[in-house]
């Protein structure tokens, strides 16, 4: 694999690192020393590729939308990560890490989840590979993503509610890390995004990079060009965006656009637009942008979308933002809902609320008619029917 990772010694520029208590030193050190070797091994590659193809259903289609192209006067494609087994890009990473954990001799997995997509993907990968699985999920999210909670339980995972803070993704991540500290010897932590201490951001990026690898090949077949003019993806922690950006990181042509959740607006207190209103600090073991007050207390985010409701962002995105190699726009709940409605009515696709944020970028851009635009449709909307029934019908 050609390396576009921009990472050196665990840092993207000044962002990243591993700010963890000594209690996790051995686990993180072991991962840092072994992840690249294991991932590159023939045994891992053979198993992983086989599963991605026959179990997950990759490659996912790159779909040209006539209706959106017509409306926004550009050539608009979407990468159909929603068609993956379990309904989102999260399975690419969950399966990769579960396989890695197994090859490292771990029998138990702990994970956090926001929307429940990563939890479902992890529970699925664990069932497939015979690993036991504990998932932490904020109590608020358990209430708003009930179908995914049921799926995790059906798959045999133990779902533990997180009761601190606003009882969402940040709190579930805290509890998953604490659980890992208490079960360090036999447990691997499958983090769900490009966040956390090194090597997680890089490892998760590698597992998700299949998205842009396929885009490149598919685009060349369909248009003769292998580099689009734009790649647009939503950003919670930033894993689907990292995967969609990865093979275009050193492209002179491709502009990278991330959509973070503005919630009720970046000037309200109910927002999750980390790059817009945040500042640099430490969250979940990484130096990156986060939402905090003047005393360094991490503030509670808000977004209608459980998967974007996170007060930090992966260090790769903090770096791309600061070095102006990517642009990040803040999308409100209402803009995301309008974009979802449009996609449902024009293309007959019900997107995840998270992914709808990426589509909401379209009306904010000025394209040339020849521009090739790829939007990463990170997941499907089955889990969000309750919100859609309330706001869209």
């Amino acid at each position: 694999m050609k390396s576009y990772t921009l990472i050196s010694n665990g840092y993207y520029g000044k962002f990243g690192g591993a700010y963890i208590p000594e209690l996790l030193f051995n686990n993180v050190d072991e991962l840092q020393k072994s992840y690249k070797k294991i991932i590159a091994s023939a045994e891992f590659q053979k198993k992983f590729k086989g599963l991605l193809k026959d179990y997950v259903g990759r490659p996912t289609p790159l779909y040209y939308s006539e209706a959106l192209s017509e409306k926004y006067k550009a050539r608009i494609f979407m990468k159909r990560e929603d068609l993956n087994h379990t309904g989102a890009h999260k399975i690419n990473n969950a399966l990769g890490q579960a396989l890695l954990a197994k090859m490292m001799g771990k029998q138990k997995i702990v994970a956090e989840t926001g929307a429940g997509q990563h939890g479902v993907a992890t529970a699925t990968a664990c069932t497939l590979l015979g690993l036991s699985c504990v998932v932490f999920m904020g109590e608020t999210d358990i209430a708003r993503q009930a179908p995914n909670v049921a799926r995790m339980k059906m798959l045999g995972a133990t779902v533990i509610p997180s009761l601190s803070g606003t009882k969402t993704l940040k709190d579930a991540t805290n509890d998953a890390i604490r659980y890992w500290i208490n079960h360090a010897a036999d447990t691997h932590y499958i983090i769900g995004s490009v966040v956390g201490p090194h090597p997680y951001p890089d490892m998760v990026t590698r597992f998700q990079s299949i998205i842009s690898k396929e885009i490149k090949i598919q685009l060349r077949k369909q248009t003769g060009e292998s580099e689009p003019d734009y790649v647009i993806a939503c950003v919670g922690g930033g894993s689907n965006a990292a995967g969609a950006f990865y093979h275009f990181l050193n492209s002179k042509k491709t502009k990278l656009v991330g959509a973070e959740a503005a919630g009720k607006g970046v000037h309200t207190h109910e927002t999750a637009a980390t790059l817009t209103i945040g500042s640099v600090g430490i969250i979940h073991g990484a130096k990156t942008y986060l939402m905090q007050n003047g005393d360094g207390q991490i503030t509670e985010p808000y977004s209608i979308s459980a998967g974007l409701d996170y007060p930090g962002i992966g260090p790769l995105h903090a770096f791309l933002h600061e070095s102006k190699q990517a642009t990040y726009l803040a999308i409100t709940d209402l803009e995301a809902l309008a974009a979802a409605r449009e996609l449902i009515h024009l293309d007959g696709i019900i997107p995840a609320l998270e992914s709808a944020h990426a589509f909401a970028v379209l009306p904010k851009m000025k394209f040339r008619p020849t521009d090739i635009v790829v939007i990463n449709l990170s997941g499907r909307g089955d889990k969000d029917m309750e919100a859609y029934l309330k706001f869209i019908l």
Partner: protein
Amino acid sequence: MKTLQEAILRNRHNNLSVFFTAGFPQAGSTTEILGILNDSAVDFIEVGIPFSDPLADGPVIQRSGTQALRNGMSLELLFTQLGEVRNTLTKPYLLMGYLNSLLAFGIEAFYRKCSESGIHHIIIPDLPVNEFLKEHKAFADHYEVSPVFLVTPDTSAKRIHEIDKISKAFIYLVSGNTTTGNQSSIQTEAIRKITGMKLKNPVIIGFGIKDREDYLQACSLADGAIIGSAFIAMIAESKNLQKDIPGFISQIKGS
């Protein structure tokens, strides 16, 4: 003045420290509790900087931090409180907190304020040794503040020797692989290996130490123990801190 290291070494195998969260149960409790502890049989005191996301802490310390933040506690206020009482305190007191609090305050400003507040040692569990050497040491040295690092029974001998070399007070040995307040058993064998390493620093055991029995066990293995969650749980229940704190301490110390 004796250094903390000298004091601990003089008191070999019989040091008791307690940890409490600043601003809990009330914002003003910091100075009250410090005053009571100063007159008790405790040997040194750890003051916790409340943080919204304390990754290494169990539920008791988490809840005390959440309450302290609700009470309006901040690092700025903590330094003000320490400034008010520093001349009345005779026992060593340390600050323990998470790196983000320190970064938000400003690295140099933090060390300067520590020194102005009578703080000579800090414990920052998520500050890696390398990062300390690179980004903090110059300020820490200048303001004569030094860090205490955590090690666990699983920390390699090589790392323990490295940490011993740069430590100036004591080595904080975590009782096992656990968050704070978890009543897992003390890993006796692994701890013996560490205390047998002929380190220049004394070794104090913390995390999950809750009563006299644990304290005596820790003292039989190392130079003393730190009690956090059990002390905070007592404070949370207490209607009379003036009576309950000295009672708790002498019960543990058997004095």
